């Protein structure tokens, strides 16, 4: 496929590009020659399945010639609405998806399983005979390929597999079509499945006014392409394809905020919205029938009248059916709200635990074909809204992403925190730095000094803050900068705190010394959305009272009734009437229950080890204890090798990790 994100053009076969001709394997098939593709597929013994107009919709059916395709038809889609519209061109694929998904062919609505024959002497079980047609799917969209791959994972991912599905999948050739338009119901871009076709196809077409840019995606596709009457695609044609697919992407709305969605959603099992949406939901099962990934089935028995044989047939079922979760003693999901919640939480949360992907690919069928127009995007946004970024980022690309490039930032103000620690406020910051997530860091450099990783200690509307302790020559030089000074900066880098994991849960923050700095943006984020979290407990230890950072803010947090802030110092002095002792003593005998809480920990590694032990003693789960690790970093993007630790590069895969991720490498000597 032709897309700037895939590098597909980079897989060129040997020769360099001709002038005016695109690099790589992109070919152009004239509109008049499309019939040749269908003919070749027929010659190969394949039946062609593709889109056609029937019953007021664009459905999938047998395609014998180009004339069967919906030339000049488009579709208006909205919640609960699908309307065919006549277009003023003769394009064949200028719409998105209809009610049918390809699972009708890979995973039919009914499939015979077993025939049981009984006589007085014996009972036999025979597998039902299966006939698997050789098919070619023509016009498979990116989201639909994603749907097929999700079903592959479910039905072929093992340890048991569905043999009928396996055989039907193997017998189908996938000829994809990239979308150049987007319906109001489309949200593939937010689910990361489209509109670009990124794999799983044999051949991919992108429609232009006079024909198609065609690229192979497999050996079978390449062989087929070689038999087609094509010419090399021109650079203009390739550019048109990129532009058209990008236009489809831009035409889509915000869709679903997937980052952290699983945890946010599972934290809202008691949200009142479940009952509200159930007032509208007819539990008609349309959404599950049109869904390309829904795979639930029931086995029904069909007996012959003579009574000597019966057949079992696998048939699509739906978690919206009243009997789906019924047992002899009752029904586990008797209320519509239970069934709606089951469906939505499976698609967007528990599916991830089971299969490593969402069960939704963003095709929008469940929205269009819902008779009352329930829109999963709206429901998700109401039930489990994303934690609002405090500053809306204009671009996710980090400033100066390569190790050689630094942007410059100007010190707008400095705040001394302690005798050796200073906070630099950087203004005139390039916009991506304003998109820094809590827990991310930047690489900072001054002329003649080594580059250093520094955690961002606050994201402001107009800049960022870095809190730096003078521990060596470079950090000393940084703490001595005056307002107006320039420094080199790259970032934001690394993986930050997973704040979504804490939605609806109690939050425990344990930190020591300058470790409070990377946690401050997290605390800012939580306090800005305070009602979304349970109890918030902050435990902070410092060497002496004079080594505490952000003393004004500590006082403000302590004054809040909805924050429990506990402080301790290692070394008391006559003026300190607070606690003296290690930070773990602040909570190791506390009475709160840790099994449902999420902890965020930052400090010297030896302190984090003691903290982790005390948190586990409180009943906390290792999957919900997050730590930020400190390692020697030079590049910040996983290339220089310094921060490698087991299977991770701390800079790129961290610096925030869950304890479960680190396993027994955390705290091990010499790792």
């Amino acid at each position, binding site marked *: 496929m032709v897309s700037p994100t895939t590098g597909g053009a980079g897989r060129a076969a040997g020769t360099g590009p001709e002038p005016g001709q695109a690099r790589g394997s992109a070919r152009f098939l004239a509109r008049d020659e499309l019939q040749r593709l269908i003919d070749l597929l027929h010659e190969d013994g394949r039946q062609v399945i593709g889109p056609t107009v029937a019953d007021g919709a664009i459905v999938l059916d047998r395609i014998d010639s180009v004339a069967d395709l919906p030339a000049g038809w488009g579709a208006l889609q909205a919640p609960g609405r699908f309307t065919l519209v006549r277009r003023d061109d003769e394009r064949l694929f200028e719409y998105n998806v209809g009610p049918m998904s390809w699972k009708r062919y890979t995973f039919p609505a009914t499939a015979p399983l077993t025939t049981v024959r009984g006589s007085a002497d014996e009972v036999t079980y025979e597998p039902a005979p299966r006939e698997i047609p050789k098919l070619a799917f023509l016009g498979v969209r990116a989201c639909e390929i994603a749907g097929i791959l999700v079903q592959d994972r479910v039905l072929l991912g093992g340890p048991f597999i569905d043999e009928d599905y396996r055989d039907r999948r193997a017998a189908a050739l996938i000829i994809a079509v990239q979308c150049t338009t987007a319906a109001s119901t489309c949200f593939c871009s937010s689910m990361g499945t489209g509109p670009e076709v990124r794999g799983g196809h044999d051949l991919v077409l992108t429609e232009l006014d006079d024909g198609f840019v065609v690229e192979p995606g497999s050996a079978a596709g390449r062989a087929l392409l070689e038999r087609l009457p094509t010419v090399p695609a021109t650079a203009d044609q390739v550019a048109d394809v990129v532009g058209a697919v990008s236009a489809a992407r831009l035409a889509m709305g915000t869709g679903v905020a997937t980052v952290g969605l699983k945890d946010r959603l599972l934290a809202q099992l008691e949200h009142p919205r479940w009952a509200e949406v159930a007032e509208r939901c007819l539990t008609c099962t349309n959404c599950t029938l049109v869904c390309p990934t829904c795979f639930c089935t029931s086995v029904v028995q069909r007996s012959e009248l003579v009574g000597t044989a019966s057949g079992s047939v696998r048939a699509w079922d739906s978690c919206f059916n009243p009997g789906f979760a019924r047992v002899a003693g009752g029904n586990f999901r008797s209320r519509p709200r239970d069934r709606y919640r089951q469906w939505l939480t499976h698609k967007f949360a528990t599916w991830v635990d089971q299969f490593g992907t969402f069960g939704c690919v963003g095709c929008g069928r469940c929205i269009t074909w819902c008779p009352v127009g329930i829109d999963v995007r709206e429901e998700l946004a109401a039930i489990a809204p994303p934690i609002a970024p405090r500053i809306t980022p204009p671009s996710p690309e980090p400033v100066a992403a390569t190790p050689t490039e630094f942007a410059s930032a100007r010190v707008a103000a400095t705040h001394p925190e302690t005798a050796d620690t200073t906070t630099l406020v950087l203004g005139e910051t390039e916009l991506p730095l304003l998109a820094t997530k809590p827990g991310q860091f930047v690489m900072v450099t001054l002329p003649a000094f080594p580059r250093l990783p520094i955690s961002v200690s606050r994201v402001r509307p107009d800049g960022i803050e870095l809190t730096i302790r003078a521990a060596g*020559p470079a950090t000393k030089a940084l703490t001595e900068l005056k307002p107006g000074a320039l420094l080199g900066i790259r970032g934001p880098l690394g993986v930050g705190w997973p704040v979504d994991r804490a939605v609806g849960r109690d939050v425990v923050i344990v930190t020591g010394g300058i470790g409070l700095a990377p946690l401050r943006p997290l605390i800012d984020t939580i306090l800005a959305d305070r009602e979304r979290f349970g109890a918030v407990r902050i435990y902070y230890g410092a060497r002496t009272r004079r080594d505490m950072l952000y003393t004004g803010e500590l006082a403000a947090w302590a004054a809040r009734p909805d924050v429990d802030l506990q402080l301790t110092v290692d070394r008391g002095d006559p003026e300190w009437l607070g606690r003296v002792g290690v930070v773990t003593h602040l909570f190791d005998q506390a009475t709160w229950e840790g099994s449902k809480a999420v902890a965020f920990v930052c400090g010297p590694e*030896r302190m984090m080890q003691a903290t982790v032990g005390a948190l586990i003693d409180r009943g906390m789960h290792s999957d919900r204890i997050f730590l930020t690790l400190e390692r020697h970093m030079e590049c910040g993007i996983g290339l220089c090798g310094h921060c490698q630790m087991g299977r991770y590069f701390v800079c790129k895969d961290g610096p925030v990790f869950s304890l479960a991720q680190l396993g027994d490498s955390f705290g091990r000597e010499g790792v």
Partner: protein
Amino acid sequence: METREPAPGRTPGPAEPRLETIVAALNSTWFGAGLPPGTQARLAAMGHIEHVPAGTVLLREGEIAEDFGLLLAGRVALRLLVPERGMVTILTVEPGDIIGWSAIVPPHRSTSTVVAIEPAEVLMLDGAELRAALRADHALAATLYPRVLQAVGRRLNATRLQLLDLFARDELARGEALRAW
């Protein structure tokens, strides 16, 4: 208690609180909660509750610890005298924890000076009675000593971490300090 002069500023506690009050106090502490009811009743019989104002010296380093205390409310500091530095607070003790464990561990001399830095409420168990009971009743000793060891071990562990002085070095791994090596 009866063998010791009251410390300056100390106000005597109310005379003979009911045993149930002391059992309830035991149950409010992590040290005393969960002890068998019989053990709690025996301890209650040898205890009394004291309320002391901030500044009260409950115990002096090197002196015989007459009472085994459980802090019920307030905060007390464990301090050591360092010549030319004065009294240094090593640890603060919070409600639920014990003070004066030396009362049941030979040679019964306090290892630090214990000062209330807030008004405090302490359940005092008479050391002589407790020692006699622990000698005579091995089941009581087997119940109580693991808890004392747990409390003392917790302090030992904390003291080790403090000894590491972690926050004084926490930027070493950040880069340039290690670069020389």
